C-alpha cells in the first residue's frame, strides 16, 4: 500500500488492501430486469396476501417478520463483523418488557400489582427500541473489547440475567406468569377489538391483517436500512474488521469503536424485534426469551447465509415457519408417533441438521443458493461482455462501480466470478 494509506487513514477507510477477502462492488447476479420484476411481484404478493390467507398464516407471517428484523440486526454483528452474540433474547426481552410496561395499564395479578404507564402503543414501541439500544450501549465496554468468540460466550451471561430479571421483577414483567401485551394502534387504527374494522375489497382488516401489513412495513424499513449500512463506508469497514482487524486499524478504522457501535445497532434491531414478538404472541413470558431463542437466531443467520440481509429473512421464515408447518401436517406425519417423536422434536432435528448441512456443503446458505440460481438465469454471453468491456455497451449495469444491493450482501466467500482478494475499482487510486 502507498504512504497515503498511513498518513491519511481517514480517507482510506472503505478501501480494502489487496488480500483482504472483500469483493469490489460488482453487479448483482441475474439479468438486469430480474430485480425490479421480482421486487414488484413480491410487493404485490405481500399486499394481496391478507385478502386470501387465513388469520393463522398471517399471524405466522408477522412472527416471522419479528424474528427476521432481529436476525438482520444479528447478521450485521455476527455475519458481517464476525462478532458472535447469543444475547439477542436479552435485548428482545428488554424491548418487549419496555413496550408492555410503557403501553400497559396498572393491574392486579395473582402475584401482585403490575405497573403500567398507558402510553400510546407507538410511543411505547419507540421507547422499547430506545431502551434496548441503551442497554446495548451499556454493554459496550464488554462488546467493544472482546474478540468474536469471547463475545459469544460472554453474551450468554445477558440471556441468564434477562431471564432472571423477567422472573423476579414481578411489578414490571408479571413474574413467571408473564403479562399480556397491549394491542398496537397507530393513527387511530386499533389492531384489536375495533368495533367496526375497516373493510378492504370485502375483507375486514382485523388484528391479523393489520399486523401483517405492520410486519411487512417494519421489515422493509429494517432491510433497507441494513442494506444501506452494508453498502456504505461503515459497512465495508465492518467487513474488514471481520476479515482482518489489524488491516482495518491500519487503514484507519477505529476497530473498538465500530465493534461497540455495531453491537448497539444490533441491539436496537433486537429491541424492535422484541416489541413485534410481544405483539405477535400477545404476551410476554420469561420462557419466550431463553437460550433456545439465541440458538434459533444463529440457526436463522447461518441457514440464510452469514452477512446477507435477504438471507436473514429467508432463514427466519425457515426456522420459524418449520415447526408451525410441521404441526399443521402432523396428521400426515403418523410415523412420528411410532418413533415417540413430536413435531417439535422433528423441527429441532431438521434445523440442527440444516445448520450442519449448510456449513458443510453451502457456507453461504440460502442466499448463496439464490445467487447461484440468479447467475444461472443470466445469459452467459451478456456476462462476458460486461466483464470484458465495461461501459462499452452503455448499459447502466455494465459499470463496475454499479453497487447493486447484492454486492453488499456477500461476506466475501465464494461467489462465482469473483476473484478472491481482487481489489475493487476504488483501489485504483493507489497506483500512480
Amino acid at each position, binding site marked *: 500500500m502507498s504512504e497515503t494509506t498511513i498518513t491519511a487513514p481517514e480517507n482510506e477507510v472503505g478501501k480494502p488492501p489487496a488480500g483482504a477477502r472483500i469483493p469490489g462492488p460488482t453487479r448483482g447476479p441475474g439479468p438486469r430486469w430480474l430485480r425490479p420484476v421480482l421486487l414488484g411481484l413480491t410487493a404485490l404478493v405481500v399486499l394481496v396476501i391478507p385478502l386470501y390467507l387465513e388469520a393463522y398464516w398471517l399471524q405466522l407471517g408477522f412472527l416471522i417478520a419479528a424474528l427476521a428484523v432481529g436476525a438482520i440486526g444479528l447478521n450485521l454483528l455476527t455475519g458481517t463483523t464476525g462478532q458472535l452474540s447469543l444475547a439477542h433474547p436479552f435485548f428482545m426481552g428488554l424491548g418487549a418488557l419496555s413496550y408492555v410496561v410503557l403501553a400497559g395499564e396498572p393491574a392486579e395479578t395473582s402475584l401482585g400489582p403490575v405497573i403500567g404507564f398507558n402510553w400510546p402503543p407507538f410511543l411505547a414501541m419507540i421507547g422499547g427500541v430506545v431502551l434496548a439500544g441503551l442497554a446495548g450501549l451499556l454493554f459496550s465496554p464488554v462488546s467493544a473489547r472482546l474478540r468474536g468468540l469471547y463475545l459469544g460466550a460472554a453474551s450468554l451471561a445477558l440471556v*441468564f440475567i434477562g431471564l*432472571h430479571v423477567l422472573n423476579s421483577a414481578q411489578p414490571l414483567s408479571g413474574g413467571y406468569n408473564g403479562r399480556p401485551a397491549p394491542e398496537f394502534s397507530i393513527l387511530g387504527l386499533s389492531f384489536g377489538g375495533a368495533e367496526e374494522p375497516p373493510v378492504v375489497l370485502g375483507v375486514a382488516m382485523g388484528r391479523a391483517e393489520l399486523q401483517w401489513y405492520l410486519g411487512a412495513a417494519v421489515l422493509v424499513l429494517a432491510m433497507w436500512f441494513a442494506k444501506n449500512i452494508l453498502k456504505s463506508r461503515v459497512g465495508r469497514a465492518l467487513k474488514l474488521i471481520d476479515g482482518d*482487524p*489489524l488491516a482495518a486499524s491500519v487503514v484507519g478504522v477505529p476497530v473498538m469503536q465500530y465493534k461497540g457501535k455495531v453491537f448497539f445497532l444490533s441491539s436496537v434491531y433486537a429491541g424492535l424485534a422484541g416489541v413485534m414478538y410481544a405483539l405477535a404472541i400477545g404476551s410476554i413470558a420469561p420462557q419466550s426469551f431463553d437460550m433456545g431463542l439465541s440458538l434459533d437466531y444463529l440457526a436463522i443467520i447461518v441457514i440464510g447465509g452469514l452477512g446477507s440481509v435477504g438471507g436473514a429473512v429467508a432463514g427466519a421464515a425457515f426456522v420459524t415457519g418449520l415447526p408451525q408447518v410441521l404441526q399443521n401436517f402432523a396428521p400426515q406425519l403418523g410415523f412420528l408417533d411410532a418413533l415417540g417423536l413430536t413435531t417439535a422434536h422433528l423441527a429441532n432435528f431438521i434445523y440442527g441438521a440444516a445448520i450442519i448441512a449448510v456449513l458443510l456443503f453451502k457456507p453461504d446458505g440460502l442466499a448463496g443458493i439464490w445467487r447461484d440460481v440468479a447467475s444461472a438465469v443470466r445469459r452467459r454471453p451478456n456476462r462476458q461482455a460486461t466483464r470484458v468491456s465495461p461501459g462499452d455497451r452503455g448499459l447502466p449495469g455494465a459499470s463496475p462501480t454499479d453497487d447493486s444491493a447484492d454486492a453488499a450482501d456477500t461476506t466475501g466467500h465464494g461467489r462465482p466470478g469473483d476473484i478472491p482478494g481482487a481489489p475493487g475499482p476504488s483501489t485504483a487510486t493507489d497506483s500512480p
Partner: protein
Amino acid sequence: MSETLITGLSLGAVYALVALGFVVVFKASEVLNFAHGSFVIAGAYVTARTHELLGFYGAVLAGIAAAAVLALVVERLLVRPIRDAPVISLAIMTIGVEVILNTELIRRIGVDIMPLGQPWGADAVSILGSNVPVNRIVAVIVAVIVIGAFLLVFRFSPWGVAMRAAAEDRETAELLGLNLGRISMVAWLIAGILAGVAAIFLTGAPTPGLAPTLAAVVLRAFPAALIGGLDSVPGALVGGLIVGMTEAYAVAFQSELEFLGRGIGEVMPFLVMIIVLVIRPQGLFGRKETARV
C-alpha cells in the same frame, strides 16, 4: 460454614473438569464447543442406562467411553471437514450438533429423573460439625486425580508438548511436521473423557439423578472457562473454583440476597464473568493478543 466451603470446592472441581474440556478443545482446534454440554449429558445418560447391567463402575467406563467416542465422531465428521472456515462458523457448527443431541437426549430422559447408581448414594458424613454429602468429597478427590493426570500428560507427553507448540504457533508447528489433525483429535477425545467424568458428580447427591436441567447446570462451566481465559489450562481450574465458590456462597446467603430476586445463585457466576471480562477481556490467565501497527 465449612459446609459451604466444601460445597464450593466440590462444585468448583467439577466445573473445572468441564471447563478444562472447553479449553483443551479451544486450544487445539480453535473451536468454541457449544456441544460440550451434550457430551456431559450423553455420558450421564449412558451411565444411567447401563448401571444395572454392568454395575456402577462398568457403567462409568461405558459412559466415559460414550462421551469420548461422541466427541471424536463430532470432531472427525463435522468439525474437521470445515477446519479452515471462520471460527464463528466452527462455533455455530457445534451449536447445530448441540441442538440435535440435546433434543434427542432430553426426549429420552423425558420427565423422569434417572439415577446413575453411585454406590455412595445420598450418604453424608459429618465434617467439623456440618453434614457433607459423600458425593461432594468423592468429586473433589477424583477431580484432583483426573486433573493431575491431565496436567502431567499436558506437560510431559509427546501429545502435550505437540499441542502446546501448536497452540503457540500453528504454522511453525505444522512446518516442523507436527500432525495438527491428530493433536485436535486427541484433544476432543480428552474433552469427551473429562465430560464423562464430570457427568457422574453433576448427577450425584444432593442432585437426585440425571434430569433435563443438567443442560443448564453444564452451561455454568462457560463462565468458568472465560473467567480463567479460554486458552489457559490453569485458568480453567481457577475459573472453575471461582464459579463453584460463587454459586455455593450465593446459595448460602440466599436470604440476604433476596432483594436481588430468587435464584440469584444461578446468575451470579455470569455476573462475575462480566465483571472479570470488563477488567480483563482475555480472562484472568488468558493470553492477550497484541498486534503492533
